[in-house]
């Protein structure tokens, strides 16, 4: 059917322009609410515009058709979106409810991340136990390649603060570096989880090798005092990032889930965001502690105090992750 195009445009234009006005308002103010009458009018205009689009044959008039398609596409997104667009920030609620609830929702993925890391820890420790020379290959940090006892003696007798005038920048470096590694652990979930597993396993190997090296040298107290204040936050943070990567991989693979790929990925999107933002917050704290406390040993900070602080942090973190927001979830 060839329609009377000038008349078609003249009749439709007022409605199209009104719909454009609605869309401009909704797009510029994402949190604005329409009244019931406005919603009805908006819906009518969308249907009117969609109807005009169907009246135009596919090849009848490309410009007008493209214009109408753009309008219908924009309105379609607004009308048919059923997901909540919670753009108002509630940081307190998000931190104390949403984050721990999301963590618990994907507890199996966290358990898997922990198990992979622990296998890495055992592998790293065994590698050093059977082949002490493996330390040169496994440990990526030059200051950890020497004898642990010598390092402990050197640091405990240090007269000068080696981080003087560098603590803040060291802290910033730790925060950004660890956050990048965490984001990578999440992103590698797109390799069907293989990359995430390798990264977690490798982290475990380093941790196991370093821990075994210090324990074998009789420096367990130093090791705990050095690692615990920041490690009890940093290591779980990396594990949560790995958890997010495994959740992403799970959605990608879709075992036991018959929904299409897009729907599966859509379902975990908010959780991935929540987990990685939570990881970033944990790493900010860990970065501060590592730069300002962990690098100072007895006699500056007694080991019992550092180990005690680490234990309290770990208990609080566990309490937060496993209990926070559980009442709200039940109600």
């Amino acid at each position: 059917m060839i329609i009377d195009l000038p008349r078609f445009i003249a009749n439709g234009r007022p409605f199209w322009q009104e719909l454009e006005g609605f869309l401009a308002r909704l797009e510029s103010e994402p949190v604005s609410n329409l009244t019931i009458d406005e919603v009805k009018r908006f819906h009518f205009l969308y249907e009117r515009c969609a109807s005009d689009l169907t009246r135009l044959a596919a090849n009848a008039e490309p410009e007008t058709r493209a214009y109408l398609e753009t309008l219908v596409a924009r309105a379609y997104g607004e009308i048919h979106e059923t997901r909540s667009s919670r753009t108002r920030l509630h940081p307190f609620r998000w931190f104390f409810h949403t984050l721990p609830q999301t963590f618990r929702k994907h507890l199996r993925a966290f358990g898997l991340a922990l198990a992979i890391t622990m296998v890495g820890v055992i592998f790293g420790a065994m590698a050093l136990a059977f082949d002490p020379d493996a330390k040169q290959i496994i440990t990526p940090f030059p200051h950890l390649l020497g004898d642990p006892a010598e390092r402990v003696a050197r640091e405990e007798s240090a007269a000068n603060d080696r981080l003087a005038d560098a603590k803040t920048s060291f802290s910033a470096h730790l925060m950004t570096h660890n956050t990048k590694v965490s984001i990578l652990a999440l992103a590698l979930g797109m390799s069907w989880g293989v990359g995430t597993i390798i990264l977690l396993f490798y982290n475990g190997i380093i941790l196991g090798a370093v821990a075994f090296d210090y324990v074998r040298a009789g420096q367990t107290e130093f090791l705990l005092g050095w690692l615990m204040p920041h490690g009890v936050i940093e290591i779980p943070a990396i594990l949560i990032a790995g958890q997010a990567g495994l959740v992403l991989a799970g959605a990608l693979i879709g075992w036991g889930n018959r929904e299409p790929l897009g729907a599966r990925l859509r379902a975990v999107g908010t959780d991935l965001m929540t987990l990685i933002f939570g990881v970033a917050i944990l790493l900010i704290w860990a970065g501060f502690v590592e730069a300002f406390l962990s690098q100072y040993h007895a006699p500056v900070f007694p080991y019992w105090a550092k180990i005690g602080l680490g234990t309290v942090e770990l208990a609080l973190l566990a309490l937060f992750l496993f209990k926070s927001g559980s009442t709200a979830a039940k109600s």
Partner: protein
Amino acid sequence: MTSRVLKIRTPEGVVFSQILAGPVVRFVAWFADVLVISAVMGLLGFLIGLFGLISMDVATAVYLLMYFVVSIGYSLAFEWFWRGQTLGKRFFRLRVVDAEGLKLQFHQVVVRNLLRFIDTLPLFYAVGGTACWFTRKFQRLGDIAANTIVIRIPKIPEPDIEQLVAGRFNSLRQFPHLEARLRQNVEASDAALALQALLRREDFDPAARVSLFADLARHFQSKVAFPTEATDGISDEQYVRNVVDILFRTRG
């Protein structure tokens, strides 16, 4: 590479399409964004450097944190507040949208931007670019994870049909029965072709323009033969203009 189109069918049965942006134009837009980020960081580096006169430690820390925040937050903030566009994307008329035509959600913006970490590996978006080439919807890994696509938004001028067909004497309208037959015999696609030829007539080379309208006039004459008194003395282009007037404007 020819442009691909993603067709979306609404529950009401209406079909609309989105023009997908290819890897090359997306890379160019990204490069423009990199230039913007570099400029911002250069300026911040200068300002923070001044602060370094007081404390180099704090200045270095602020620079490290700012670099991290700007490099990640730039795309994230722009794509959220500009509804799927960064400066580079806006310049090249690109937009990130939901792959199913729905409203872009904040978590989609976050996920697609965080997954740049593997899309950029090992260099210059090699992983993301390769994924883009081989996926049906030109999606990099971040787009797949976030269920988003990047579309092109061409400038759509509203056709000024009135200036083509109104206010001129149409000799073909003297023969209403032939006019009716013409409406009956001409396909919608042929009518659209003629209309487009008229709308874009100034874009053609003079020789091509003469040739095109000669072909079109001959085609329409083969559909319905008007008497010579209706066609004498008018050019092929005017003949096509009269045909379009008949096809697209009803009398009254």
